[in-house]
Structures are given as C-alpha cells and as structure tokens.
C-alpha cells in the first residue's frame, strides 16, 4: 500500500497527518468515555439511588426524576409549537415570502444563542417578570425556546421528504387541506419528527447553564411545577464544583453518559427506520 507513495514524500507526510488527526480524535473520545466508566462504575452504589437526597447518601435519584419531568414538560411545550410552525412553513406558506425569510432568520439566530444567554433571559423574563420564581416551569419554558429551532428544523426536513404524490392522492380523493396534513402527510413524517424529538431530549438532559438560574438547584423532587428542582446535569455540576463528593460525581457522570449514549442510539435507530421506508 505504501508503494504508491514512492517518489511522493510530500503526499506520504500529508497522508500520515490525516490518519494521525483521525487517530487523535477517536482516541480522545475513547479515552474520555473509558476513563469516566472505569472510574465511575465502581461507585454506583444502591444508596445513590435512594428516593431522598441527604448530604449522607448524596442520592442522584431526585435529580434523575427531575430530569425526566423537565424533559417531558419542555417537550410538551416545544413539540406542538415546533411541529405546527414546520407545517406552516412547508404546507401553507408561499415560497419566497418575506415573512418566511424572517422566520428562517430568527430560527437560525435561536440556534446560535449559547445556553447561558437562554439562562439569563429565562431568569429575567420567566423567573422575575412573569413571577414564576426558580421553578420547574421557568426552566422548562426556557429550554422549550432553546430546543424549538431543533424541533422545527427536523420536522421541516421530515415533511419535505414526504412525496407530493401523497398529497395529490389525498386531494384527489376529496380530502381538504387540513385532513391531508393530519391524516396523510404527518403520519408518514413521524419517524423524522421522532428522531428530532430524541435529539432535543439529548440537549435537555445535558443542559446546565440554562437551568441554574431558572429551575434552581434544590435537590429534591418538587411537588408542583412552581417549585425548584435540579436536573442530573446541574446535580453533577454542583457535586464537582463543591469537590466534596468526587466519587459520587464520577458515578453521576456514568449515569449521565449512559443516558446520552442511550438517547443517541435510539435516535440512530429511529433514523435508520426512516431511511428504510
């Protein structure tokens, strides 16, 4: 294989650089995942999963439950809005409309805003101006705005990939626009939409900066959406910045990593389903 580089030393060097860079990238990833797993798995004790947090057991269970609650709440807010606006963009809007350009511009802007700015905005608007206080609701609303462009984008792609013949067939059978959208177009776009929702879930699970000053850092399961509660990522940040419970922080990192790995695999699986159809 190396024979073809005879007389081309420059090309050989470049080839080695390319392969070397790829090796670095994948070694770093492998090292990170392996390091966290090897250091963390031995610390996964049953006491970490007890229902109530005390400074004794440093349980991550309340944070885990909060993460699920936060994810559900944010998705309930963001998914309908995201899907509906994608329907508007793909099915209803006329092409080349100024208004469409404005929507595209704003969604691109939302995509680029870092999570700390969302957190700051959430604190100013939902926590203070709306008077929600540090609460699950304020956190979920903030995250909903954050994942909105992601949901919109993936739904749009999914709707666009539905062939026009589906729509024409439905119109031909006498269905109205609305019925066509809900009974024909949307069902065939579901795998794509689902993949987007799973990606959004991944972002919510990993989010910290947008939540510290919106959902707060209370380490228990709230009894209503107006109470504060920390998610797993926030819990992890608190543990490692306090520096008192490093073993538990390792274990929490394992759980967080496992969640993200699971979510990634699921989204890949759904996406594969999509390409098969």
């Amino acid at each position: 294989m190396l024979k073809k580089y005879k007389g081309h030393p420059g090309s050989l060097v470049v080839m080695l650089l390319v392969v070397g860079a790829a090796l670095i990238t994948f070694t770093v990833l492998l090292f990170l995942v392996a390091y966290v797993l090897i250091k963390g798995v031995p610390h996964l004790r049953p006491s970490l999963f007890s229902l109530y947090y005390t400074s004794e057991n440093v349980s991550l269970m309340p944070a885990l439950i909060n993460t699920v609650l936060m994810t559900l709440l944010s998705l309930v807010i963001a998914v309908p809005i995201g899907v509906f606006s994608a329907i508007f963009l793909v099915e209803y809007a006329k092409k080349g409309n100024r208004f469409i350009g404005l929507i595209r511009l704003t969604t691109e802007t939302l995509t680029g805003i870092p999570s700390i700015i969302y957190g700051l905005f959430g604190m100013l608007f939902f926590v203070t101006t709306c008077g929600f206080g540090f609460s699950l609701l304020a956190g979920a609303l903030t995250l909903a705005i954050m994942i909105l462009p992601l949901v919109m984008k993936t739904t749009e792609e999914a709707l666009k990939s539905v062939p026009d013949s589906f729509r024409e067939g439905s119109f031909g059978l006498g269905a109205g626009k609305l019925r066509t959208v809900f009974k024909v177009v949307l069902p065939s776009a579901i795998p794509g939409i689902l993949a987007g929702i799973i990606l959004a879930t991944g972002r919510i699970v990993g989010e910290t900066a947008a939540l510290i000053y919106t959902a707060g850092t209370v380490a228990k399961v709230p009894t209503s959406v107006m109470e504060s509660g920390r998610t797993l990522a926030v819990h992890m940040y608190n543990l490692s910045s306090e520096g008192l419970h490093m073993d538990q922080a390792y274990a929490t990192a394992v759980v967080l990593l496992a969640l993200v790995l699971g979510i990634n695999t699921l989204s890949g699986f759904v996406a594969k389903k999509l390409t098969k159809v």
Partner: protein
Amino acid sequence: MKLNKFKEYFMQGVFFLAACVSILAVAIICYFLFEGGLPAILKIGPLKFLGGQVWRPNNDMYGIFPMIVGSLYVTAGALLFGVPIGILTSVFMAMYCPKVLYRPLKTAIELLAGIPSVVYGFFGLVVLVPAIRSIGRTLGLGGNGNSILTASLLLGMMILPTIIGVTESAIRAVPSYYYEGALALGATHERAIFRTVLPAAKSGVVAGVVLGVGRAIGETMAVIMVAGNQPRLPNGLLRGIRTLTANIVLEMGYATDLHREALIATGVVLFVFILLINVSVSLLNRRDKNA
C-alpha cells in the same frame, strides 16, 4: 360544510401563530437582555465597562476587559487545537475512511457532539487539570493547572464534532469530477484532495470553523470547571482566566443592584459577539448558494 371551512381557516391561523413564536422569542430575548443590561453600561460608562481592567464589584469597579480578553484567548486556543485536527479528521472521514469503519466512526463523532458539557468539564477537572499542573511544575513554570491552556485544550475537544460535521458535508458536496480530473492530470490522492477538493469546499470549511468559534465562545460550564476564573489579565498560558460566560454564572447567585445589572450587561456583550458570528455564518451560506 361551513363548519369544515371554519376549521380549515382556524387551523391555518393556529399554524401561523406557531410560526410566529420563534420571531416573538427572538424579539423578547433581545428586549429583556438589552433592557436589563444597557442601563448598567450607561451608568458605568461604556468605555469604563468595556475597557476597564479591574473587576471589583465590592468597590463598584466593573471593568470586563479581562473577561473579553479571556473569552478571546480560550476561543483562539480552542481553534489552534480544534481546527487542524477537525479538518484533517473530516478529510479522513470523507476521503480515506474504509467503508466498514465509516458507520461506527460517524456514530462516535455524533456521540462526541452529544456528551453534555458538564461531563467534558468534569473530565477536564480530573484529567487535564492535574496533567497540566504536573507539566507546569516539572518545567518550572508553575501554575496550578487551572489555566488558559487547559481550557483551550478542552474547548478544542468540544468543537471537534461541530467542525468535522460541517467540513465533511462541505467536502462531500464537491463534485467528484474535481477529484477525478486532478487524478487524471497525474496528481496523487493527497494532492488532489488538498489542492482541488478542499479549496473548492472552502466556504463550507470556513462556516464550520465559525460555528466552532460560536460554540467555544458561548461554552460555560466546562470552562468554569477548568479555567481558574481569576478576573484579571493573565500573564502566561499556564495562568488562570475568567471568560464572559463564567463571570455570569459565578456571580449571578449573590449579585444585587448595579452588580447584577453589570452581569446582565456582560451577557449583552456576549450576545452581541454571538449575533456577529451568526450574521457572518448566514452571509457565508448565502454566498455559497449564489456561487
């Protein structure tokens, strides 16, 4: 029949309103940030705020110049590590990777993008910080490991998936006859890639790098955990530094009055940086489409 027509119009209205939410969101984000931050900038004085070198809220001194410099340093450092490795890796993925390896490697890169920033930060805290500390000690340069260098390394890792993803699709979008033509003229595989394919994909590559800049400058949690967070101008790569993002998170918990407003104003400065980056990305994309 009439009811049906009403339903059609009603739902069309609902879809339209949903589409307006993102416009509304950007509008209120801008309004509340600027409303919260601008008064402080005016009260402190724009020059004193942006150019002041001392951040001492207890003495009413609010200069964020060290933080601006800090954000720029760690972002530049991240680019120094992330861009060459990212671009070369994407060349590997697009032009070298054996078919059997492609799926697993692509999944690995997606995973790299999905790992939460606290986990990156934690990794930096327990692996990179001690490593840099001992290197600094053995070389006699001092420093406790929380430094510009550590933050740059970590951010370099974190922007890899962004750069690789965008660059790879830019390379794949170059028509294959560019590559084939170069080969036919006697170029080696490498020469064909680096002299014809990559230059043709230039604007995509630049867009990837700019997106990486956006990610690096906006990153918060990972940087806080490894950068040391001292709000002063650093005098060496192994010294600690505080970024704009870190400033907000570290002090917002207990800040009141003008201090709090100054932190919001820090967010405004960051927001303006990000908007500039966004605008340049969309300009790049537009030029790409026209070409």
